[in-house]
């Protein structure tokens, strides 16, 4: 019997969501306890800041330019490399619950297997998972959760915020108390909300397993990704009127605009509502119109959702303990990318490589049976400062399972001590998008306390632009030092490393864009 692997992911969650990472509003005792018993990574980046490319990195262990899912709406082929298949072939039972999103949600013709499973009353197999029960952010579409909700609680299905508007664009309509976009009071019963549904389905599957089974269970919660519409019964947890504004929110508009103007021009263009470069933000919403109270209300809803996530994780862990597996189970907790959540006066995500979107939670509670002193194991450090990435998750799971990572995996097992020799000390993130005439490409490296982003020529950039931040001196990346002559050597060194690590995009080699998302 080997070590079991329990991977919890959330969607669009900031580093500071959990208490262990400095979150001071949401109460997250279950995650914090797992972190206290394991290792917390203080500089983990996704390899893309949108869902489909980032999730493709988690399952393949590859960078975006390798797996080829270069933007949302590009499908990862069903036969693509998969950590689930590797573990399945090694004898593990494998399952995923919640948000997969390796294939587009927009599926007019019913072309994609993820969308067909529930329609066919099937739970797999697919991509190496023996069992799949899928969900996204609401009641539309043909994933398992949406079909379950519509069939069993049709009155509750109507209570969600409609993610898309009548033009199938991300909805800009305001709601809640302040008119904030993508906010709504959702009358759904907590038990029927997708966070609890995902946990329930995972626990039900765990109950089907033999006591001595080896298993990999990916519990993939759709929250706290917008829409921000947690069950109304839970709104008492955090009153937006009581919240301080987030540290990254710049209250003075003139200061805010000066900060944005020092970044490449698409930042200010989006803020002013003159350019939306990607599908993931509402094109009819102008960030400059957002009020401080709207920022507070969005944040309050996110904090509520994070508390529900923590409680759901606690319930799943309770089931693991009840089955007697806790000592032999490795628990990994992360997300696919971050969220502005008011930083710089912005919401959502896009081609903006700063900590709001880049810095994400990563926690590894190794199976207690594997780490005891006297067992020949190195005692893990509580926190790791070296840069790591989601690309490292798949090889880490191989290491847990005692499998040599396949050659196609590009990451490295997560370090367990700060003195891990021979490990790459940089993390890379890519952005490519080409949507309705707006093309954009960013390449980012984080190394030695610096965050550097280069821009390739596109619709609004000529290729000379860039961003350079000192993470220690400028934790909110307010001062772009790209043109600081005193840092020319640092910039040149980082850019050379970046160019050597990521080849320029070959648009003819890209997988086809087949949907908006």
């Amino acid at each position, binding site marked *: 019997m080997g070590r079991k692997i329990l991977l919890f992911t959330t969607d669009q969650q900031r580093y500071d969501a959990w208490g262990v990472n400095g979150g001071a509003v949401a109460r997250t005792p279950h995650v914090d306890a797992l972190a206290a018993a394991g290792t917390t990574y203080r500089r983990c980046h996704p390899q893309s800041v949108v869902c489909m490319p980032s999730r493709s990195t988690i399952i393949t262990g590859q960078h975006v330019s390798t797996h080829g899912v270069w933007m949302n709406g590009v499908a990862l082929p069903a036969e693509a490399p998969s950590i689930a298949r590797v573990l399945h072939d090694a004898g593990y039972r494998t399952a995923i619950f919640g948000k997969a999103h390796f294939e587009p949600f*927009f599926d007019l013709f*019913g*072309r994609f297997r993820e969308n067909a499973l529930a329609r066919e009353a099937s739970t797999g197999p697919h991509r190496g998972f023996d069992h799949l029960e899928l969900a996204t952010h609401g009641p539309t579409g043909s994933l398992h959760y949406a079909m379950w909700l519509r069939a069993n609680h049709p009155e509750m299905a109507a209570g969600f915020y409609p993610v898309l508007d009548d033009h199938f*664009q991300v909805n800009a309509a305001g709601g809640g108390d302040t008119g904030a976009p993508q906010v709504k009071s959702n009358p759904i019963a907590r038990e029927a909300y997708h966070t609890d549904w995902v946990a329930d389905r995972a626990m039900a599957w765990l109950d089907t397993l033999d006591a001595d089974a080896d298993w990999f269970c990916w519990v993939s919660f759709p929250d706290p990704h917008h829409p921000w519409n947690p069950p109304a019964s839970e709104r008492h947890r955090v009153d937006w009127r009581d919240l301080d504004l987030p540290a990254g929110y710049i209250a003075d508009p003139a200061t805010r605009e000066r900060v944005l103007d020092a970044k490449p021009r698409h930042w200010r263009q989006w803020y002013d509502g003159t350019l939306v470069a990607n599908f993931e933000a509402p094109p009819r919403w102008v960030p400059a119109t957002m009020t401080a109270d709207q920022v507070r209300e969005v944040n309050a809803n996110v904090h509520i959702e994070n508390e529900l996530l923590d409680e759901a994780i606690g319930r799943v862990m309770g089931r693991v303990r009840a089955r007697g597996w806790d000592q032999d189970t490795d628990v990994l907790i992360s997300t696919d990318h971050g969220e502005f959540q008011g930083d710089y006066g912005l919401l959502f995500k896009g081609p903006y490589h700063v900590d709001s979107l880049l810095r994400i939670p990563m926690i590894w509670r190794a199976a207690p049976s594997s780490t005891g002193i006297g067992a020949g194991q190195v005692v893990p450090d509580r926190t790791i400062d070296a840069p790591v990435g989601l690309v490292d998750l798949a090889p880490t799971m191989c290491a847990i399972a005692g499998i040599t990572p396949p050659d196609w995996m590009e990451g490295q097992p997560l370090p367990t001590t700060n003195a891990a020799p021979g490990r790459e000390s940089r993390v890379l993130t890519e952005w490519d998008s080409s949507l309705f005439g707006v093309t954009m490409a960013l390449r980012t490296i984080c190394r030695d306390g610096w965050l550097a982003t280069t821009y390739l020529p596109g619709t609004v950039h000529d290729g000379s632009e860039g961003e350079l931040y000192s993470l220690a001196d400028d934790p909110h990346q307010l001062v772009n030092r790209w043109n600081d002559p005193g840092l020319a050597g640092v910039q040149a060194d980082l850019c050379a490393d970046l160019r050597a690590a990521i080849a320029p995009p070959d648009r003819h080699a890209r997988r086809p864009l087949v*949907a*908006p998302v």
Partner: protein
Amino acid sequence: MGDLLATLGLVAPFGSLRNDVRIHRPADVVWAVIADVGRVADWFPSFQSSRLSGTQRIVVTRNGVSLVENVLRVDHEQRRFQYSVVPNGAIREHRATVDVIDLGDETCLVTYSTDMVPAVLVLALGGGIAEALETLREQLEAAPPAT
């Protein structure tokens, strides 16, 4: 974004997309397949069935959705087929043009152009069209050339 630009008065809120494929078979051979418009499901994998009813074509997608299409033009001289999806809950306006262009070396280029509202849906249609054109190429090139 199409809609954003439209609100600024710059362009119509249409999504516009062109797919194409080169097929190593004569234009007349390829055109004969495309012009048989009621049998589009034979080479369009996203459709589980298709049939003609007067000047309309009814296709049923893989996930069971029926789309009614108006056949606007089957032009044997230009080798051009045009049709439009009858507006439904999702699609408000639509027009597609399929051209078969003789490249003069016993090969041809098939272009499949789509304009529609809402703009973003054109991407979802385009994925199915790209798959269909590739299927068409594979089917025709797998068949022995006419002698």
